[in-house]
């Protein structure tokens, strides 16, 4: 199930105006909900309740209907991504080499669960499918950087995270 963000909403009036303008023009067209959600996610980066309420109002649908669509399609996210997005590969090759344990260690170190983002918006953590670097298993990525051949005990993690201290 999709992770629902507990972070406080930090949308700006400009963002809201942009979304409302789009909805004003397109919201009542048939099939508007999908593109509306796409546009909203482009603006906000994710889809919290505050945003879904605007989309529901603008498309004349109920909040639950919009939520149902947002959770049906994989492309929509209900929680924000951090400045540094950590994705731990749980593909078969990585998994047998202990990436599950690494994910658990990262959850512990970052204080957030899989699918969450830190309150200050710095790190977000998610599991991913095979990213095609099986030779390096187990693997995780921080934005574009790939870290592989990691030790199961997680002893390298602190040093890696320290690189993103800014």
């Amino acid at each position, binding site marked *: *199930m*999709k992770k*629902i963000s507990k972070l406080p909403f930090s949308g700006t009036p400009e963002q809201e105006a942009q979304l409302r303008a789009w909805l004003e023009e397109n919201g009542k067209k048939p099939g508007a909900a999908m593109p509306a959600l796409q546009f909203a996610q482009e603006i906000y980066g994710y889809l919290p*309740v505050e945003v*879904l309420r605007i989309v529901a109002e603008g498309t004349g*649908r*109920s*909040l*639950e*209907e*919009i*939520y*149902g669509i947002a*959770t*049906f*399609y994989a492309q929509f996210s*209900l929680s924000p991504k951090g400045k540094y997005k950590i994705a731990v590969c749980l593909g078969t090759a990585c998994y047998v080499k202990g990436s599950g344990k690494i994910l658990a260690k990262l959850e512990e170190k970052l204080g957030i669960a899989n699918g969450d983002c830190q309150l200050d918006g710095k790190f977000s953590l998610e599991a991913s499918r095979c990213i095609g670097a099986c030779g390096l298993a187990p693997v995780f990525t921080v934005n574009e950087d790939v870290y592989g051949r990691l030790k199961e005990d997680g002893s390298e993690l602190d040093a890696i995270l320290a690189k993103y201290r800014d």
Partner: protein
Amino acid sequence: MDMVKVKINGIEVEVPAGSTILEAAYKAGIDIPTLCYLKDINEIGACRICVVEVKGMRGMVTACVYPVADGMEVFTNTEKVQKARKMNLELVLSTHNQDCLGCVRSGDCELQKLAKDYGIKDTKAWSGMNMEWPVDDSAAHMYRDNSKCILCRRCVAACGVTQGIGVIGANERGFETHIASAFEQPLDNTSCVSCGQCIVVCPTGAIAEKDDTDKVWAALADPTKHVVVQTAPSIRATLGECFNMPIGTNVQGKMVAAARRLGFDKVFDTDFAADLTIMEEATEFLHRFTEGGAMPLITSCSPGWVKYCETYFPDFIPNLSSCKSPQQMFGAVAKTYYAQKMGLDPKDIVVVAVMPCVAKKFEVGREDQSAAGVPDVDVAITTREFARMIEKAGIKFDRLPDEDFDKVMGEASGAGHIFGASGGVMEAALRTAAEVLTGKELEKPEFMEVRGTDKGIKEAVYTLAGKTIRVAAVSGLANAKEILTKVRNGEAQYDFIEVMACPGGCINGGGQPTQPASVRNFVDLKSLRAGALYTQDERMTLRKSHMNQEVQALYKEFLGEPGSHKAHEILHTSYVARPIKY
């Protein structure tokens, strides 16, 4: 109308072009099983239990949505069809919590019946890992148990289409698909109005009322309590269905006898309080109409509607009649006037209400509903729960004699009885308002224009004592939304509007006996049930609320005039704007 000829299992039938195979088969006297299909509101062709073979076509088609064509030959019961349906059922059962023995719907469950009809011997054929869903029992009126949900989405259509609310729907996808509210909020934290329309359309035990019968049994067993029961206008028109009587049978006499045998100290009629409501509401209407006040006046008998108004149209709160609903007026009078007359302490009186409605469970806990300092009504149970009590007590319902309600709060006029159908409150109010305005007896007490359960919005203009009164009777909340939006935008003007949350009124309430889709899709449930009440009214000599002698005695001995200060303290209430939640 263009007609086409088709053959169903070799039987030729003629049906209007555009009919579905399901409809043509019905005409040929053949039932095709359905699970997801509900005429007009849920035509999604998703469950595929209704598959049939069509001559000349390779695959099977879904009979519920597939239109017939001239000359079409359909086979509804071939080996291939039976196999497909059986497999389909086995797959549904593989994720189903098969707890039939303890299930509220056992015996009238559409899934259970199909499993039996199709001879599913191995109900665990495809079982494996399953999702685990917690039961959502957060709300006062109902619970949802997704472990028994077959994802037919009938409830979603009832909530979203019929009622225009949409607080429940399908979330996530694939194996994780489930019915819930936005952001997985418990129902209590949504703007569900407690109408229960989702319950009566659910084919299984996945949604049901909160059972309050234990509270009633406990009260009946307590010798220190004086337990009285009131039955709503529509119960007499539906209760018989729970005991296999034909739809539309009026069982008032047996209902009273059953209640007496359950051990209630007094068996009273909510219809007495319906007449009382008319006295207060007609007075309120005439006052606002002649002296000013928020107009149109809108009725407040239906707690699902009241909650809807408070949540979605709070700007209309001043228009709501300040009258308590008949259920609550009854309780208020029982714990003041009746208590005094009987020399009872209101704290020792337990008022049980048998209602067509699950929102009544919410209503008993509302603020400003305690005329005697204790809640006006203690327990509200649905028609279904009442039937379960009768069943449990071993009372042979069909063999009961017909008995009469007890005195003091047991008399009712025909006007009180028709409260149970959409338009009934309006008609009852007009009968009284007309005679008060003109000072003359009405020649004809019928106001036909506001009758009927087929239309969700009925409008009429009447001239009473030279005054023009524009009225509307609305049922189903999607219709309420339509009409209130028009009034708000100045596109329509009325003086008096009746709103019932449930389509067709209380006779089709969320607490009424369940009927399978095979009945709902083909039988006019609403008009049959409403017919029982109109027939009763027609046969009576007492047809106007203000002629009710017990109501007259109540005013004379206790309340004074309709609309008096005392009447206001006891019979009227207040409303609150509610924020839209999830």
